């Protein structure tokens, strides 16, 4: 009850200042090992409509300490979506060791690994900006060479190749971060069906905390794929989309 009134009063004062205060307060609760109230305080920042990579990370830590692995993984993944951080990656690895499902990931080819490492240097927005910047720079140079005597062919060709790389990176980054929908399973144990029907063949069983990729939606059913490549249908309510 006390916490509820606290949240309401906090919601009233929506400002970044308030959110900073909330964050600090939540950190204090975390230090006092009062993880439940820390979670409530952190969550209240989210309800205000603000987020940050660190906020999700801290929430993940709280859930980890509470041994709620699915929630911890969800928040770590969410944090990684906003910003890559070694601390988060390591914590996520630890949390992934705690869950039941151990899925052997299909190893990626080396150039795919390099490419995905390369595109994750910037987020999608940055890639978009970079592409736009380069194309406008190229245009300016072109116009410059048209009306003045300034000619620098080498620079222009370098610019064009950079442009090609950046536009591919933007596309991949967009595919990876925006088009690709991922989710974490929250139900303790679910059966994955072969069709979006309850009485269809059971393909395999998944447990809470497992990361899945959403391929398709059909009413309340979603077509999912796990890291080892197998796919099937589960109900939307069984998981929480990242």
């Amino acid at each position, binding site marked *: 009850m006390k916490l509820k009134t606290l949240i309401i009063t906090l919601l009233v004062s929506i400002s970044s200042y308030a959110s900073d205060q909330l964050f600090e307060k939540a950190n204090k609760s*975390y230090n006092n090992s009062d993880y439940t109230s820390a979670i409530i305080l952190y969550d209240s920042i989210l309800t205000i409509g603000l987020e940050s990579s660190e906020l999700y*990370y801290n929430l993940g830590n709280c859930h980890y300490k509470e041994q709620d692995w699915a929630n911890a993984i969800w928040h770590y993944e969410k944090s990684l979506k906003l910003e890559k951080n070694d601390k988060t990656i390591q914590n996520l690895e*630890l949390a992934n060791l705690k869950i039941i499902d151990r899925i052997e990931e299909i190893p990626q080819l080396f150039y795919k690994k390099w490419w995905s490492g390369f595109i994750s240097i910037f987020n999608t927005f940055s890639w978009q900006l970079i592409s736009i910047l380069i*194309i406008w720079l190229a245009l300016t140079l072109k116009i410059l060479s048209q009306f003045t005597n300034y000619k620098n062919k080498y620079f222009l060709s370098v610019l064009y190749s950079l442009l090609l790389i950046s536009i591919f990176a933007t596309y991949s980054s967009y595919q990876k971060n925006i088009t690709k929908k991922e989710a974490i399973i929250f139900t303790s144990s679910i059966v994955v069906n072969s069709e979006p029907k309850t009485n269809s063949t059971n393909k395999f069983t998944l447990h809470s905390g497992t990361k899945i990729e959403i391929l398709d939606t059909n009413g309340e059913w979603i077509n999912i794929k796990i890291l080892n490549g197998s796919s099937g249908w589960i109900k939307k309510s069984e998981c929480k989309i990242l």
Partner: protein
Amino acid sequence: MNRIILILFVFICTHSIAQKLSVSADKNPAIVGEQILLQYSIDTQGNNFKSPNFNGLRVLSGPNPSTQSSYSYVNGKSQNSTKTTYSYYLKATKEGTFKISPATIKVDGKTIKSKSYQIKIVKGSEKNKAQQKALSDNLFIKVEVSKKNIVVGEQIMATYKLFNRLELNNTEVSELPDLNGFWTKDLETSSRFKRDVIDGIPYYVAIVKQSVLTAQKSGKLIIDPMELKCSIRVKNNNRNRGFFGNNYQIQEEYISSKAITINVAELPNPPPNFHGAVGKFTIKSEVDNTTANANDAITYKLTITGTGNIELIEPLAIQFPEDFEVYDPKVSDRIFEGGRKRSIKTFEYLLIPRYEGEFTIASSSLVYYNNKTKKYETKKTSQHNLTIKANTNTEDENSTINQQIIKTEKKDIHYIFTTTKMKEIRDNILNKNLFILIFFLPIFLIILLRIYNIIVGETDTNSSNWKNKKANKIALKRLKYAKNCINNNDFDSFFEEIEKSLWGYFADKFKVRIADLSKETVSTHFYSNAIEINTEKQFIALLDECEFARYAPASNKNAQMGDILNKAKRIIIEVETALR
């Protein structure tokens, strides 16, 4: 018809008789304790004989195969017969009916099965019983146990004694006790018989086996029976004694001890640092040097003395200083009677201090259960203070690396972030359509610019420039040797080279054979490729000039050479550009 059937019948009969594995016993029914001879026989030679299952009967020996062959020659007919017999000596230990499952044998690739056989074992007659009784009175094993109610980890001594009043020829252990739940240590025994009188009857007593048993778990543990095979010399009662007056025969008897149950109680509330030591012990620790140099070895010796399951005591958890290199202890012990008498066990640790300073080896403790006082007792070692001096040996210092790798053993999540910068929750990307607009507008503009350029036709200058450059390159390549000659002041070969290069260039360019090279061919080829007449004239003039210069040397050779080289170059460039 009848005759045919008869013949067939006879044939089948003989065939089946020849391939039958028959089974027989020398006595059936037999008396408990008697030896039974069981024989499997077949009228041919077989192989791969598989023993039957003697449900409950003991096999004394077997299968013992034997083959008999006979050859007879009667009235001009020869007959050859072979008989194979597999015999078993069996013994029944209890009465009842025993069914022996069929045995199999392979003959000519075929598997032949015997019939199953039933043996009835009956109780011996009165006389036989009396004989048995007489035997068990005169020959038996007895187990003596030092204690019957113990706790886990406590030790008892079990002694198997053989009592004998007969003429014993030979004894052999046929079944050793399993002793499940005990840690067993056999002691050395002498099998010599000693005379002992029990209830006024003298016996010859020998210790067959003596072991110290340490109970490993609680509950009722059974010291199961031990069985001995004894060969006794018995006087032969038969009248038809042997030819050599051998009136003794060897009789084999199996005797076994009785099972004994030992009650093993759980230890009462063991303290946390108790590791199973039961008995009475003292503990002592020693260090050979209390002051040492860094990197010099120190020996730490821990001695446990006492009675009990000392052999099972594991090395104690000793708190050595972190910076010491500790090697696994060398364990040595002198155990007497499996620890029932005062025994010694020592653990010798080799320590190598790596850094200077004052260190202490904390005292460690041994907790044991005293089975006499029925209490847990703790014995502590003394604490040792060590002074480690810096190593004066500089050479050594160089060889050892003084850096330490920080170990991170336990894995836990990282601490939370304490600062952050909040942003509004939204998809942090440009709208797809907006992006396409901003991105493709410049591309569109660039394309427009290009189209404009093509229409205006300003691109030509660019490409002609590039062509010139290429022509220049070709000319330079052709005239490379000539240029070398200028550098070397090789006046004579210069003109030759120029001529050679020009003709070579011409021949390569217009694909003219060397034999056809002449001034006429030059004009025809230049004309057909629409090369200016001026160029042709210059070409021919240059060739003439070279020829002339070779035989009439000019006064200023260097200037002339440079001039000619430039001319040749210009001509090649002109031809190259004209041909495009």
